[in-house]
């Protein structure tokens, strides 16, 4: 379906799929601690790889959590490089069509090494309960 993009992440039981606090506390590949980011992948296998890097080499398959959750979001028709989505606290699902969020694209050089990954950054909008998520399709941007 045009304009629809599916992203994946694997997270443990008891954590919400749009919970960005892990990256906020520990930091991640593209963000230092203090910045809430939700990391997702363009394919479930890539999400698995991101998990395996933390696990035992020989027995990583046994360490993988049983809960594999896929997330899907829809992109605006005109957006080929970026996607803005908003997740309200009341909604467990991602919805499309942010209207009150600004989107600024940033591409650190280090991201070019991982063209298949996606990065979503949450940014609070005023006092609203909603958060803006900046979505950056690295594969498309590096191919453009």
């Amino acid at each position, binding site marked *: 379906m045009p304009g629809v993009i599916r992203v994946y992440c694997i997270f*443990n039981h008891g*954590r919400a799929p749009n919970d960005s606090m*892990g990256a906020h*506390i520990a930091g*991640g590949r593209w963000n230092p601690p203090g910045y809430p980011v939700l990391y997702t992948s363009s394919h479930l296998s890539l999400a698995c790889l991101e998990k395996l890097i*933390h696990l035992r*080499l020989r027995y990583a398959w046994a360490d993988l959590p049983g809960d594999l959750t896929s997330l899907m979001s829809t992109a605006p028709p005109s957006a080929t490089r970026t996607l803005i989505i908003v997740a309200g606290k009341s909604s467990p699902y991602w919805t499309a069509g942010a209207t009150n969020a600004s989107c600024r694209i940033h591409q650190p050089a280090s991201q070019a090494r991982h063209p298949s990954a996606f990065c979503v950054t949450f940014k609070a909008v005023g006092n609203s309960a909603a958060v803006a998520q900046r979505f950056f399709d690295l594969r498309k941007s590096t191919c453009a």
Partner: protein
Amino acid sequence: MQMAIARTSAAELQVLVEHPSEPAIREYATEVFGDRDRAAEWFYSEIPGLAFETSGALVTSADEESLRRVLKTLIQIDYGVCA
């Protein structure tokens, strides 16, 4: 039957990152992996994300930065953060 394990909140993890301790990290590892045996196996294995060091050696080093490295790795596993 597997016992349900209470999840450490983000606020508690934040405090733990600021003041890491070996017992608390081992407890959190049990929570992340689901049981003590799997957590113990993880502590005695070389982990690519930790530059092939064993997390067990790092947490027993009494070096706060090493403790923090292991803890952050566990948080990344828990939340699915790319390292």
